[in-house]
C-alpha cells in the first residue's frame, strides 16, 4: 500500500463507480498489466464500488502505483460495519490481496505488477488519467455544485440578516412615524392656539375701533353744545359782556372748535381703521369740485404771501369717483400745504395719465418741506415733523394717514416727495413738498348699456348695484320681485336684466322662464346675481355672479360681457 498516488476519486453514485472502473482499467493498462488483468482490476473495483453504493456510503478511492504493485485504497466512513461482504469477496477473487478494515473504514486492494515491464512514470500516468475528461468535468461540476450550495447558504444567511435589519428599520420607521405624528399633533394644537390668538387680536382691534368711534361720538355732542352756547353768549342777542369776558368766551369757542375738528378727524380715522370705507362713485365735475375747494381754503391762508392756484386738464373734466372722499383727500393735502407754506404758491394740478389709466392730482407747495427721514413717518398716525412751524400750526397728525387710507380705499395711491428749504450754500433755495394722488379712472365716457333692470328683493343691494352702475348704465330700473320686473319690462324694454334667484311672489328662475317664453323679452340678456351657490342655474342666464364680495369690477365685467354676447 505504498507508492505514488496517481489519482483520488470520489465514489458517491453509480456514475462514479463507472468512472472508477474505467480509470482502474486505464491505470492497470499503463502500469503494465495484461489485458485480462486489466479487466480483473476494473471488475474488482466495480464490485467493491457497488457494495459501497448498496450500503449508501460515501467513499473515495485512491490509486497508488508502487514499484511492483498497484494498490487501490477505498476510504469509507469509519465504524460503519463494512464487513467482507459479497462485493469484496468477489473482488478478492480477482486481485492478489484485499484487506478490509471496518473500524478504520478502509478497503485496500493490491494487484502485483509483472516484473521487468517498462512503464511510463507516475507523472505521465497522472496526466493521461486526468485527460479522461468526464472524470474531471464531473468533479468540477460537483465542486461547483458544492460551492454553489455554500454560496446559497451564505445568501440565505445574508437574507436572514437583511430581514433582521429590515425589521430594525421597520421598527425605526414606526417609531419615527409615531414621533412625527405626535409632533404633528403638537403643530395642530399650536396652530389652533395661533388661530385663537389672532382671533383675540382681531377682537382687540375691533374693540379699539369701537372705543374710538364711541369716544369720538360721545365727545362731539358736548363739544357742539359748548360751541352753540358760546355763540349764544357772544352773539348779538345775548346780554352784553364785558370786553374781557367777550375775549375769554371767544377763546372758549375757538378752543372748542379746535377740539371738535380734532375729534372729527379721530372719528374719520376710526372709520378708516375699521375698514368700513366703501367708495360710492358717481360722476364728478372736477372743475366744480376744485373750485369749491379753492373757495373754502383760500381765506384760511391768512397772509397774502401765499397764492392758491388750481389747474384742471380740459380734456377730462369729469371723473367717476366718490366725491366726498376725493374732497376730503384734496382738502387735507391743500390745507397741509397752505399750513406749511409761508410765502410762495400752493398749486393743484389735475391731469389724466393715459399710460396707466389714472387721474393724477398733484399738490405742490413752496413750503418748508419734509426732511427725507420723515417722509414715510408722516403717514403714521399722530406723527408730526418736529419744528417751530409745526408746533405753531394746529393739527393732530391724522390728516395724511387718513388721506392715504381714503386713496387706498378708492384703489389709488398717495405719495409725497419733498425738499427742505434753506440751509444751502446759496441761501435762497426754496423747499417744497409735492403730494401726488393717483386714482384709477373708472369707466368714463358714454354709458355702455342703455337700460338695466335690477330684480332683487333686497333694497340695499339694489341701491348698491345702482351706485355701481352709475355712469356705466344710462338708466337703472329696480324691481323687488319677478312680477314687478315683468311689469317694468313690459313698459320699457331693458338692455340687460340682473336677476336674483330668491325673490318673493315670482323667483328668478320663474322670471327667466317667463322671459324665455316671451318673444320680446327672449333677447334680453340676463345675469344671475345670487347667494345660492349649489343651485341649478337656468340655461338662459348669460352669466352667474355671486352676491358675496361683489365688487364693481366684477359686476361691470359681467354686464359688459353679457351685453356684448347679446350683440353677436
Amino acid at each position, binding site marked *: 500500500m505504498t507508492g505514488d498516488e496517481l489519482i483520488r476519486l470520489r465514489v458517491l453514485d453509480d456514475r462514479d463507480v*463507472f468512472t472508477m472502473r474505467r480509470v482502474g*482499467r486505464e491505470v492497470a493498462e499503463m502500469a503494465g498489466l495484461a489485458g*485480462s488483468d486489466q*479487466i480483473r482490476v476494473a471488475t474488482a473495483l466495480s464490485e467493491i464500488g*457497488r457494495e459501497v453504493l448498496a450500503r449508501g456510503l460515501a467513499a473515495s478511492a485512491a490509486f497508488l502505483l508502487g514499484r511492483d504493485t498497484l494498490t487501490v485504497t477505498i476510504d469509507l466512513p469509519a465504524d460503519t460495519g463494512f464487513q467482507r461482504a*459479497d*462485493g469484496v469477496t*468477489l473482488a478478492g477473487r480477482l486481485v492478489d490481496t484485499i484487506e478490509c478494515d471496518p473500524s478504520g473504514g478502509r478497503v485496500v486492494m493490491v494487484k502485483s505488477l509483472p516484473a521487468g515491464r517498462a512503464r511510463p512514470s507516475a507523472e505521465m500516468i497522472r496526466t493521461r488519467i486526468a485527460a479522461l475528461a468526464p472524470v474531471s468535468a464531473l468533479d468540477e461540476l460537483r465542486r461547483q455544485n458544492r460551492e454553489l450550495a455554500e454560496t446559497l447558504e451564505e445568501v440565505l444567511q445574508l437574507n436572514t440578516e437583511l430581514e433582521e435589519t429590515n425589521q430594525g428599520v421597520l421598527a425605526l420607521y414606526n417609531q419615527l412615524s409615531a414621533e412625527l405624528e405626535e409632533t404633528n399633533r403638537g403643530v395642530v394644537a399650536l396652530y389652533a392656539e395661533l388661530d385663537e390668538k389672532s382671533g383675540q387680536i382681531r377682537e382687540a382691534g375691533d374693540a379699539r375701533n369701537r372705543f374710538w368711534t364711541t369716544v369720538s361720538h360721545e365727545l362731539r355732542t358736548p363739544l357742539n353744545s359748548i360751541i352753540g352756547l358760546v355763540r349764544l353768549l357772544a352773539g348779538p342777542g345775548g346780554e352784553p359782556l364785558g370786553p374781557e369776558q367777550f375775549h375769554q368766551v371767544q377763546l372758549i369757542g375757538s378752543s372748542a372748535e379746535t377740539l371738535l375738528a380734532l375729534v372729527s378727524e379721530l372719528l374719520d380715522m376710526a372709520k378708516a381703521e375699521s375698514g368700513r370705507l366703501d367708495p360710492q362713485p358717481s360722476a364728478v365735475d372736477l372743475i366744480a369740485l376744485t373750485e369749491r375747494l379753492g373757495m373754502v381754503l383760500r381765506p384760511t391762508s391768512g397772509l397774502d404771501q401765499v397764492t392758491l392756484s388750481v389747474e384742471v386738464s380740459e380734456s377730462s373734466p369729469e371723473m367717476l369717483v366718490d366725491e366726498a372722499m376725493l374732497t376730503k383727500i384734496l382738502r387735507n393735502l391743500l390745507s397741509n400745504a397752505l399750513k406749511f407754506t409761508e410765502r410762495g404758491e400752493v398749486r393743484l394740478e389735475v391731469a389724466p395719465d393715459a399710460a396707466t389709466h389714472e387721474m393724477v392730482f398733484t399738490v405742490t407747495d413752496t413750503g418748508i418741506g419734509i426732511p427725507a427721514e420723515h417722509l414715510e413717518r408722516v403717514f403714521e398716525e399722530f406723527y408730526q415733523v418736529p419744528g417751530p412751524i409745526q408746533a405753531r400750526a394746529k393739527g393732530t397728525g391724522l390728516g395724511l394717514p387718513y388721506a392715504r387710507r381714503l386713496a387706498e380705499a378708492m384703489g389709488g395711491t398717495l405719495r409725497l416727495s419733498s425738499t427742505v428749504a434753506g440751509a444751502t450754500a446759496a441761501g435762497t433755495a426754496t423747499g417744497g413738498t409735492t403730494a401726488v394722488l393717483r386714482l384709477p379712472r373708472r369707466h368714463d365716457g358714454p354709458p355702455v348699456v342703455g337700460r338695466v333692470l335690477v330684480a332683487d328683493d333686497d333694497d340695499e343691494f339694489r341701491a348698491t348695484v345702482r351706485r355701481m352702475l352709475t355712469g356705466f348704465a344710462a338708466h337703472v330700473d329696480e324691481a323687488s320681485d319677478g312680477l314687478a320686473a315683468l311689469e317694468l319690462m313690459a313698459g320699457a324694454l331693458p338692455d340687460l336684466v340682473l336677476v336674483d334667484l330668491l325673490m318673493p311672489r315670482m323667483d328668478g328662475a320663474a322670471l327667466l322662464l317667463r322671459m324665455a317664453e316671451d318673444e320680446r323679452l327672449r333677447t334680453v340678456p340676463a345675469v344671475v346675481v345670487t347667494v345660492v351657490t349649489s343651485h341649478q342655474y337656468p340655461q338662459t342666464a348669460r352669466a352667474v355672479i355671486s352676491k358675496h364680495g361683489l365688487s364693481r369690477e366684477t359686476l361691470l365685467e359681467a354686464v359688459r360681457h353679457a351685453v356684448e354676447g347679446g350683440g353677436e
Partner: protein
Amino acid sequence: MDRVPVLKLGDVLIVSIQVDLQDQGVLALQEDLADAVVATGARGVIIDITAVEIVDSFIGRMLATIASISRMLDAETVVVGMRPAVAITLVELGLSLGGVRTALNLEKGVALLNSSEDTQIAAAAR
C-alpha cells in the same frame, strides 16, 4: 444516457452493445428489449457484447435476467461475442450466466437459434 438500439431481423431481435455499459443503460435495455419482444413477437434474441470490456456481477446478473424475461416471452436468448478476458473474469467471479446460452459470434448465434428452434431468419434463409 445512450440507449442501446434493438434491431429486428426476421424473427430475431439483435442487440449490439457497442459501448461500455453503465448500470442505467443495462436497466433501460432490459425494458426496451422486453417491449420489443412483445411488439414484434420475436422468437429469438441475440445480445452482442463484443465491445463490452467489463462484465461484473451486476451486469452478469442482468444478462441472466434479460434471458429469463425473454424466455418468459417465448424468445430464446443467445449472448455472443464475449471477450476472453470477460469470460475469464466471469468464471473467476464464480458467475456462469446460468440459463444464458452463448455463442462465439453473431453468425454462430444465428445458427444456434435456427437449429434449436424452427425459428427462421429471413435473411439467412435466402
